[in-house]
């Protein structure tokens, strides 16, 4: 099974804090990591490869330093890494990003399956996965929490919804986005780490991809960010004091209008 995994390098969001004095983002020491949801995508791809044979190719679009994310994926068992990187792609929104990644995937030849994390932790849009499948005109199954059955022609999947899940069968090739529940990503082996160190990462630029210049980067992006600001941080309120029964009565009085 030929599997492509699309990943994104993100700042370790939880370490991004606001400096209360200057009201700006404090980023000193913020590490770059693979988007946590993409770890499940990599793991699932490697597991499918272990069952069916084949190859796992990881693709990312980003700055040159995203190279390290691809190597980490290789250390977990992926075979090849491609870095889609060009200044012409800078400023891409989800439309242009999914167009560009779909273009890169077309260049890589035939595939059976594309797996993405359900969303990236920095942008939280969940739009690029479905965007890629739409550009490639292949079926998609989002929020996959379990692969029930797989052959080289089709898969039966459990897709998470708000109040339960659906069982969906899809022909291949298809694109899946996966949630945390699907697996537990492995810790890279020493052998994997060695392999990742020496692995060759292939750079794909606009020159290789020859994408429509009107559809990439800023020009190809319908959305524009016009303002960035820090939200007023939520502050703690009242601490209720007294005996437990008394506290309970106080709280009932305070919030009972909201309960009905």
């Amino acid at each position, binding site marked *: 099974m030929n599997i492509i995994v699309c990943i994104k390098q993100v700042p370790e969001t939880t370490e991004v804090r606001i400096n209360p004095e200057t009201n700006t983002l404090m980023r000193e020491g913020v590490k770059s990591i693979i988007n946590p949801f993409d770890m499940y995508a990599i793991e699932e791809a490697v597991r499918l490869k272990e069952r069916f044979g084949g190859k796992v190719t990881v693709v990312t679009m980003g700055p040159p330093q995203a190279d390290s994310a691809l190597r980490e994926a290789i250390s977990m068992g992926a075979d090849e890494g491609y870095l889609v990187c060009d200044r012409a792609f800078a400023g891409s929104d989800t439309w242009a990003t999914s167009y560009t990644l779909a273009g890169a995937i077309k260049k890589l030849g035939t595939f059976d399956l594309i797996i993405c994390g359900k969303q990236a932790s920095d942008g939280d849009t969940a739009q690029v996965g*479905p965007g890629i499948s739409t550009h490639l005109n292949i079926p998609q199954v989002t929020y996959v929490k379990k692969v029930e059955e797989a052959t080289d022609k089709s898969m039966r999947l459990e897709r998470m919804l708000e109040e339960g899940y659906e069982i969906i069968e899809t*022909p291949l090739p298809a694109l899946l986005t996966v949630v945390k529940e699907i697996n537990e990503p492995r810790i890279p082996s020493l052998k994997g780490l060695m392999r990742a160190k020496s692995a060759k990462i292939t750079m794909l630029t606009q020159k290789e991809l020859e994408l429509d210049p009107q559809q990439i980067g800023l020009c190809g992006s319908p959305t524009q960010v016009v303002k960035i600001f820090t939200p007023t941080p939520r502050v703690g309120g009242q601490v209720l004091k007294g005996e437990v029964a008394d506290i*309970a009565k106080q709280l009932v009085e305070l*919030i009972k209008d909201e309960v009905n």
Partner: protein
Amino acid sequence: MSISIIIEKCTGCTLCVKACPFDAIKIVNKKAVIDLHKCTLCGACRDACKFKAVLLEKTPAKCDLPNIKDYKGIWVFAEQKNGRVQSVAYELLGKAQELAKKLNTNVSPVRDNGAHKVADGCLRQPISNGVSAVLIGNKLEDQLDELIFCGADNIYLVEAPELANFQDEPYTNILVELVKKYKPEILLCGATNIGRSLISRVAINIKAGLTADCTGLDIDPDKKILMQTRPAFGGNIMATIISPNYRPQMATVRHKVFAPMAADKKRKGKVIKESFDPKLYFSRTKLLDIIEEIESTVNLSEADIIVSGGRGLGGPENFKLLEDLAHVLGAAVGSSRAAVDAGWIPYSHQVGQTGRTVGPKIYFACGISGQIQHLVGMQSSKIIVAINKDPEAPIFKVATYGIVGDLFQVVPALTQAFKIALRK
């Protein structure tokens, strides 16, 4: 479009470095240098620079743009499951009515009580100018009145047996065809699992701008365009986004961000039935089954009240305490990641960065310390009640009401007190 630093003006003061949300600026030889790979041209550095040293040229790109003047009216995708329209659709209809007034495109008054006067007192515009719901499924007649009462001036209704349940491809095909035919100016959709899957495909197909998970929607009073505000980086920064050159302007919004308007049984609306070539109803993926989780306490997104527990519960059996309180309050049960990872409760209950983001009226955090990953998933709740024995727990920094104490005493006391107050 481009960004550059005017070297002569730059003093190397680092204000722009601090302002940049994307870590794209460094000071090299006492001058700011922008890493264009990281830069999104958001303009935060230009706004921060006291020396006007950041040159940001947002000249319209030389792209072939659609004729945006043809697009009118605000649409809401009314997601239905089991033939029942989801609550987020009503919330969006209420917001859409508010936006329509600001856009001044809502010129089809549904009843003349003088509440809103029509410019020039005439109905020049076609009815497609108001707020419309798009409803796709099968046998949905009984849902139409409520949509109209809650803000729909029109309903575009597409029914067929094979459309009874959501599937990505047919629903995408239909929505794309409807948009092409009727050209709405704005298209809103709930940020549910279904909504996000569907609307992403639609936006790619029709080449439109789509902003996910908006927490604020407004109309720019001069340009009459949709201003879409959303959190990024786990809520650490907010961004306002526009799609000025493409239509429809598309956005998804989570449950509970906006309030529905009060149902008005005197409202009138028009139902426009559409059907398409059956080829468009074909789906390559096959929906084999829908498994509803038995617990009624699991739908966190739609819950007005959530009672959540964390590591402080000490074990799976103690979720019973929370269920008792939830039962009295008619609440859903949530949990922190710690409790899910420990195997005490299924993942579908997890609130936080790798679980669900929720914004109920009241959120009870019981034995949850309040790690940032949890806070980003619940800090938009209207009221947060925190119960923790550690007075230094970070959860108290965001709690509206804090109770420092043993949850094994406090939670049953709350259950009892609410039982009495609510006479249950």
